[in-house]
């Protein structure tokens, strides 16, 4: 089962989440997030997996009326990041996110990657340039863009844009990276590139990924959580979930009987 030597990076404890219209999107969700591992969230549309993911960087704070209950504890701080006294901006500085559709800024390739550093007030040109290069290399994009870093980011292909967004998220050395269906807008080759990249990245950070694609979950993740109607149905290491799920619902979803 779960390897006892892996450290806990974060963990949700009895997390409830309510949208401003009163809808309860998450019901008492508890799940660990192990350091330097990839955890995949799977489940049918509307099951709350994206909602759950977006709790980790307090994205729901952007829209008034949303409410969290319960805890997401981040380590090593041992702090509940949903606490009122926690600054969501500080949380987002340490937990970065890659979105479903590539969303580069209307800036050059270089400035896109430098954005997080600029926002943090980094003024040293040398530091910024080094970090940008490192992040572009980390996102396997450096060789393709190193000679045209001043080009607009929109001139890149969809797959390149998504890797640019990963580079942008990498540039600030986050501890956790959230991926919200990062390949659903990409072709199979670009998807394979991103998946490979995720596997490389986990040596540096902890990854939580939402995916609609079960093969993807099986390919890249170490742990898998199956969610349904806002509840955590089953959590375990990926091999077990995909070969010997304990619950009938999980098995039905995985084998394509529904969803």
């Amino acid at each position, binding site marked *: 089962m779960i390897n006892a030597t892996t450290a806990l990076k974060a963990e949700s404890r009895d997390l409830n989440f309510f949208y401003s219209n009163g809808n309860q999107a998450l019901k008492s969700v508890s799940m660990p997030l192990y350091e330097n591992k990839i955890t995949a969230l799977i489940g049918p549309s509307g099951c709350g997996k994206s909602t759950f993911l977006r709790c980790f960087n307090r994205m729901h704070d952007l829209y008034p009326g949303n409410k969290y209950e319960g805890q997401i504890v981040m380590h090593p701080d041992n702090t509940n990041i949903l606490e009122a006294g926690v600054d969501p901006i*500080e949380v987002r500085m340490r937990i970065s*996110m890659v979105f479903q*559709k590539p*969303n580069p*800024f*209307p800036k050059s390739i270089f400035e896109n990657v430098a*954005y997080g550093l600029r*926002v943090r007030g980094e003024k040293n040109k040398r530091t910024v340039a080094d970090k940008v290069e490192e992040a572009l290399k980390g996102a396997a994009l450096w060789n393709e863009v190193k000679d045209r870093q001043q080009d607009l980011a*929109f001139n890149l292909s969809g797959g390149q844009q998504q890797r640019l967004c990963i580079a942008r*998220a990498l540039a600030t050395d986050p501890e956790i990276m959230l991926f919200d269906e990062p390949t659903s807008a990409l072709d199979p080759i670009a998807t394979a590139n991103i998946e490979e990249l995720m596997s490389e990245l986990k040596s540096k950070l902890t990854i939580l990924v939402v995916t609609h694609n079960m093969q993807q979950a099986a390919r890249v993740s170490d742990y898998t959580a199956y969610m349904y109607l806002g509840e955590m149905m089953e959590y375990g290491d990926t091999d077990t979930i995909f070969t010997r799920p304990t619950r009938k619902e999980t098995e039905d979803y995985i084998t394509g009987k529904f969803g």
Partner: protein
Amino acid sequence: MNTATNMQNQSTALSISPRLAKNVRRNIKERVIELILMLAALSAVFTTFAIVAILLYESLGFFKVVSLVEFFTSTEWTPLFEDAHYGIMPLVSGTLTTSAVALAVAVPVGTIGAIYLSEFASHKTREIVKPMLELLVGVPTIAFGYFALLFVTPLLQKVFPELPGFNMLSAGIVMGVMIVPYIASVAEDAMRAVPMSMREGSYAMGATRFQTAIRVVTPAAVSGIVAAYILAISRAVGETMVVAVAAGQQPTLTFNPMDGAATITAYIVQVAMGDLPHGSIGYQSIFAAGLVLFALTLGFNIIGHIVRKKFREQY
């Protein structure tokens, strides 16, 4: 060869089934609708061309008497005096100075207002503030003119005692206030059209609201914001009543906003209100002035168009 001719025979031999035949009545109806729509669209184009034609025609009479050199180099504009001078520059300087003052007020205030409304105000605040702002557009410009003359000028005179009763500063400031809603409204629409995913991308990087507004939303909406500025420039250059009432009607070649001066529009309205014989040089001078006004606005519009194309929407 044989099969090819066979197929040809087949295709010529086929008759069109009545259910698939062209529907003549529907086709005619479509044509008529298309024609009506086209006429409606063309009416605006036609009007523009008609205006330009009349401006050109009447100005032609003017330029038979006044040379282009005199028109562009003379520093006096006194077409109705005994000793007539026909230099358009005093009117152009008045127009540019009042417009510059107006834009110096309207661009920052309008842009900041748009950023506030789009990125900071709650839904409720926006729903209250925006219609109120747009209400300003409905205030007759003559009211703004007297507001400038009777309220803003005395106020300014407390700060600058030497300020004359008619001055371009007061007219420009009030005109700027008048234009704020145009900029705020159009720029806000452009900012709100920036996809939420782009803002989320910025917030997810740990950016604050202000950083997101300035570094991501504004550059993404720059095309629409520039469009707002162009609209504002056209409004300022073409504005008549405020400057006619508050800036004085004395054509003076000056770029000092503390002076009084006439703008092109103020001259046109002043002359048009008097009774000038049709076809006289004074009468024709308003068309020449109008032509310059048209060229000025057109020039700004073209510049704006180029700038917009350069920063077209990039998301």
